[in-house]
């Protein structure tokens, strides 16, 4: 069995505390206290007296609590309170321990008064109320302090944020981030620090004085941003005044307030940073002005630095590609080698030389050439990491400096990427142009940091790559140096050989396959070296091509062959023999000059009938100007000379050449003729080529015929002419003369008659 009276006190005190705990201000605490106490005690009236006034009361009509009567109760003068509608009510009260004292006064109708427990309850309630009010007041004081602290923290936090913005901008400037990005950081930062106001950076247009360009903005209404992208200084209001007067200008008008701070480049006003607040009653204070000033100063810093850097950059960078130019690259390379050397690291250098670029430049113009170079620069940059350096050394030569690689394979991988990238077509306003590149790789020796040597080695490796087929890479090996020196020596020797007239012409007969009768000769150059003896063409022609000595050599061979053939034909004519044709090889490099003019002169000089001359051209898989070659060949054709395509079937564009060029004769490469000894599918290919020649009504000459079976096979598939060891080796002039002219009696007689 519970003590119900005691339980009631606990319950009612708990309810009282619970009700008070929901309020957090003093007036409501008093109000709730009176209501809750009245509820707990079934009282008609409860009041809180504080400092001689009624802080709260319930039971009287609102605002009509009798303060004097209640005060009399707490002073002990009265024991009852008159409550409207209830008459005199028994009253008790409990004081608080605080100053000024608070009194909780409770009055209830009926005669019975209050029990001991109830009196205890009232005291408990007064104590709870006192504690709660104290707590609420303390909390309020703490809140006020917390608000002050919060303001302080906000202020510190704002300064921190400002510093973060400004140091971020400084870092971006130091790292040479693109100017637009830095300026955007400035407007974004100012926008945030100014509580979301619109912030705009206006800069004077360098091309149009007096015109402002909105260079960066943040927080402007979209429509305003579009509408205001350009303004004259006169139209620009606050901004215009700030620029004209070189000072901070503020505006505070109904519906709009703002301020503008000038921006300088090396001390000269070049624009303004402006903040605007649309609508509301925004007032710009010192804090706001300071913030905008700070951002404007950073805008000045960014603009000045960018201009300075641009000027510096111009001197150090190639204007076409934007890449580092040779001189700073060499300095960078030297510095890099020193650093790497100290760390025991190696650097990798790629020497990139474009293949076929000259043709593009010559045929499509320098603008097209520059476009290709710029694109090459971009592709090279895309092949490497940010820490690597790409430079244009000049012309169509580039260099890539690689550091921080683990294995040589990584350097080779970059070279492969470079080759792949440069193999892709270059789009020149709709026209795809194909070039390519040869890459030489050299790797530094940590003990010998020599920039020139590293470049030279890479260059040599590139040269080697180019010599051995182009579109390739080579890693430098010491023997390349030797080979290069040999080449250099060879070129010297070739020049000497030209001077000493050491080139001789050999002739290989072209015969009818049916009876072996010669119908023509192919002129072949040989070098009669005074020390080395007879040098085969394969040993010197590539160097002659590279050094373009092939042009004078070719000219000499042509003239010699024409002269000899003219002589032979004159004598054969006397003997009633048919004229011979002479086939002379024409190098691709020779075709770049005015070949028809040169050939006409040679024909005129030697007296050879144009119809007796057949010029052999070789297909090239490298890009060449088809139109120019066609034009040259047509003009040669116009002279009356014949044209043959040599080594037919070995190039990539045999059929194209056959269709585009005015070719009379196809010479089937020896490789196809060799196939005729077997019954393989490849012999079918040879037959097909012969058949093709006949179909398009071209003469077909089989090269390298060495066996009777080959001769027979060629005859069987319709080929009429051939040359090769089966008929004769290349012959010197005397042997050739013996072959093509009649017996001595006839020979002797004929000239005699002619002499007469």
């Amino acid at each position, binding site marked *: 069995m519970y003590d*119900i009276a005691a*339980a009631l006190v606990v319950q009612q*005190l708990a309810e009282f505390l619970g009700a008070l705990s929901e309020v957090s201000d003093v007036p409501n605490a008093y109000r709730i206290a009176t*209501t809750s106490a009245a509820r707990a005690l079934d009282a008609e009236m409860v009041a809180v007296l504080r400092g001689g006034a009624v802080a709260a009361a*319930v*039971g*009287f009509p*609102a605002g009509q609590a009798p303060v004097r009567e209640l005060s009399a109760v707490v002073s002990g003068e009265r024991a009852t309170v008159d*409550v409207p509608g209830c008459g005199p009510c028994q009253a008790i009260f409990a004081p608080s321990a605080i100053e000024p004292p608070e009194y909780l006064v409770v009055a209830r109708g009926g005669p019975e008064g209050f029990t001991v427990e109830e009196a205890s309850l009232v005291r408990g309630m007064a104590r709870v109320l006192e504690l709660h009010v104290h707590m609420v007041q303390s909390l309020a004081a703490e809140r006020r302090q917390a608000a002050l602290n919060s303001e302080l923290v906000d202020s510190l936090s704002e300064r921190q944020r400002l510093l973060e913005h400004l140091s971020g901008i400084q870092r971006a400037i130091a790292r040479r981030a693109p100017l637009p990005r830095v300026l955007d950081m400035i407007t974004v930062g100012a926008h945030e620090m100014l509580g979301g106001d619109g912030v705009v950076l206006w800069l004077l247009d360098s091309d149009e004085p007096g015109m402002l360009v909105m260079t960066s903005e943040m927080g402007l209404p979209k429509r305003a941003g579009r509408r205001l992208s350009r303004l004259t200084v006169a139209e620009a209001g606050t901004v215009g005044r700030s620029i004209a007067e070189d000072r901070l200008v503020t505006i505070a008008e109904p519906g709009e307030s703002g301020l503008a701070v000038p921006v300088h480049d090396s001390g000269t006003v070049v624009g303004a940073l402006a903040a605007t607040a649309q609508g509301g009653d925004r007032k710009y204070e010192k804090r706001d002005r300071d913030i905008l000033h700070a951002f404007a100063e950073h805008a000045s810093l960014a603009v000045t630095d960018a201009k300075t850097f641009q000027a510096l950059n111009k001197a150090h960078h190639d204007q076409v590609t934007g890449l580092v130019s040779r001189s700073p690259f060499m300095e960078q390379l030297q510095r890099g080698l020193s650093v790497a050397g100290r760390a025991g690291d190696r650097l990798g250098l790629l020497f990139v030389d474009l293949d076929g670029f000259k043709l593009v430049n010559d045929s499509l113009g320098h603008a097209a050439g520059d476009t290709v170079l710029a694109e090459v620069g971009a592709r090279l940059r895309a092949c490497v990491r940010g820490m690597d350096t790409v430079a244009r050394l000049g012309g169509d030569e580039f260099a890539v400096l690689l550091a921080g690689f683990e294995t040589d394979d990584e350097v080779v991988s970059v070279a492969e990427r470079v080759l792949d990238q440069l193999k892709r077509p270059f789009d020149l306003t709709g026209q795809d142009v194909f070039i390519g590149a040869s890459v030489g790789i050299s790797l530094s020796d940590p003990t010998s940091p020599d920039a020139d040597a590293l470049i030279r080695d890479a260059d040599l490796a590139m040269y080697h790559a180019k010599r051995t087929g182009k579109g390739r890479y080579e890693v430098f090996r010491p023997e390349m140096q030797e080979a290069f020196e040999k080449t250099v020596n060879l070129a010297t020797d070739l020049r000497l050989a030209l001077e000493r007239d050491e080139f001789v012409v050999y002739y290989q007969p072209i015969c009818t396959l049916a009876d072996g009768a010669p119908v023509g000769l192919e002129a072949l150059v040989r070098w009669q070296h005074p020390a080395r003896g007879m040098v085969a063409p394969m040993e010197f022609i590539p160097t002659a091509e590279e050094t373009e000595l092939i042009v004078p050599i070719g000219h000499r061979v042509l003239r010699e062959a024409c002269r000899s053939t003219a002589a032979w034909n004159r004598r054969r004519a006397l003997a009633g023999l048919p004229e011979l044709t002479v086939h002379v090889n024409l190098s691709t490099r020779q075709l770049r000059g005015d070949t028809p003019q040169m050939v006409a002169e040679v024909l005129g000089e030697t007296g050879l009938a144009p119809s007796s001359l057949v010029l052999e051209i070789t297909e090239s898989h490298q890009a060449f100007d088809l139109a120019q070659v066609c034009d040259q060949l047509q003009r040669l054709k116009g002279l009356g000379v014949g044209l043959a395509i040599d080594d037919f079937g070995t190039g990539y564009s045999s059929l194209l050449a056959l269709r585009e060029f005015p070719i009379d004769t196809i010479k089937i490469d020896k490789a196809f003729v060799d196939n005729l000894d077997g019954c393989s599918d490849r012999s079918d290919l040879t037959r097909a080529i012969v058949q093709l020649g006949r179909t398009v009504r071209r003469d077909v000459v089989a090269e390298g015929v060495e066996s009777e079976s080959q001769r027979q096979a060629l005859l069987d598939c319709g080929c009429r002419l051939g040359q090769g060891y089966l008929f004769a080796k290349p012959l010197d002039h005397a042997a050739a003369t013996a072959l093509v002219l009649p017996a001595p009696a006839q020979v002797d007689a004929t000239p005699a008659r002619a002499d007469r």
Partner: protein
Amino acid sequence: MDDDFRTYAAQRTRWFDVGVSSDDDPHRAGAAAASRALTGPDPRLLVVFCSIRMDPHAVLAGIKEVAAGVPLIGCSSGAELSVEGPGAGGVTVAAFGGSGFSVRTSAATGTRTAPREGGLEVARSAFAGMDGANQLMLLLTDGLVDDQDKIIGGVYEMLGAGVALAGGAAGTALKPDGSNANTFHMHDGEVLTDAVVAAAITSDGPFGVAMRHGFREVGEPMMVTRSRKGRIYTLDNRPALHAYLDRLGAPAEAYHDKEAFVAFSRLRPLCVLRRATEEVRFVTEHADLGEGSLMCVGDVPEGGMVWPLESDADSTIEAVDRVWPAAVEALGGRPARGFLVFDCGIRQDILSQAPAGDQGGEEVGRMVRQAGGLPFVGFYTWGEIARVRGVNGLHHQSLVVLAVG
């Protein structure tokens, strides 16, 4: 706040009458009920209890036809009470008339979110300038407001102990989708929702207000050993749900089946012990059968005492016999002219679900007998208001009778 202050002091006569209509047409029902109630001259106030199923605008329009300009308060009800028996779908009207009554009506909205403010609002200046020894505020609150006691608290703060309070909370009924239809109130010519309406009445005659419920305490009181707001976790240090069900001898399924629990608990509230009264706390369906906690409407303070209550149809009906004489007695020997009855909707449930069949008619029959031929109307409320002494004025699962002297 719409103050409509009218005082009449010429003849100092008083009359009270009621009218009922169950006409399906709300307009006609309103007009008929009002015209039946208006049996005397100089009507001062109409109090309307209108079925939630009726269009209140049409009802008001009908009333206006016969009682234009008469101050009016009213509210929705799930079911109405009258001498004709319990009804669901009609209109009942009580009319206060004669110069012996002075009336000012008022209304406030937004009580579902600011109940105290609503109470302050309807009571502010309610009796200003009105004379008469007997003051009563007739309050019709909203049954969908959780903290109705705060409305009463607001009224008491404003009026003090000198004004008796009586009334009830507007009722409603379930819609076909299972939700409650929105309650409504009437104030003069307006229909309001989320509102409280009041009539401040002074009279030359007395008012008698009494409240009783028909519950019996079961066993000894139990101590609330852990609770928070209305949720009771433990009683006598046992899971509250088990202690409660054990005490009441609940069927086994009520311990684990929510539906069975709700069917059992809704007729068996808890009584929170007060110094001089008992506050009944309805045990809601939000009990947690898993953790064994109960949920009540209204606070059940930790450390307090509660009794489980039970009732049956007989004890429910017997409450009529106890409350009615108490209300009449409160008239101090002056004769009653009629009665307003605010009877809890739960009591109606107890009666309608009685084992012997619907006993609702029995209860009204008992009221008829107690009224002794005097007019009375009322409705089944969602909260009952009766304040004669002290600050506590809101009751649950009770029967409140206002005797008009």
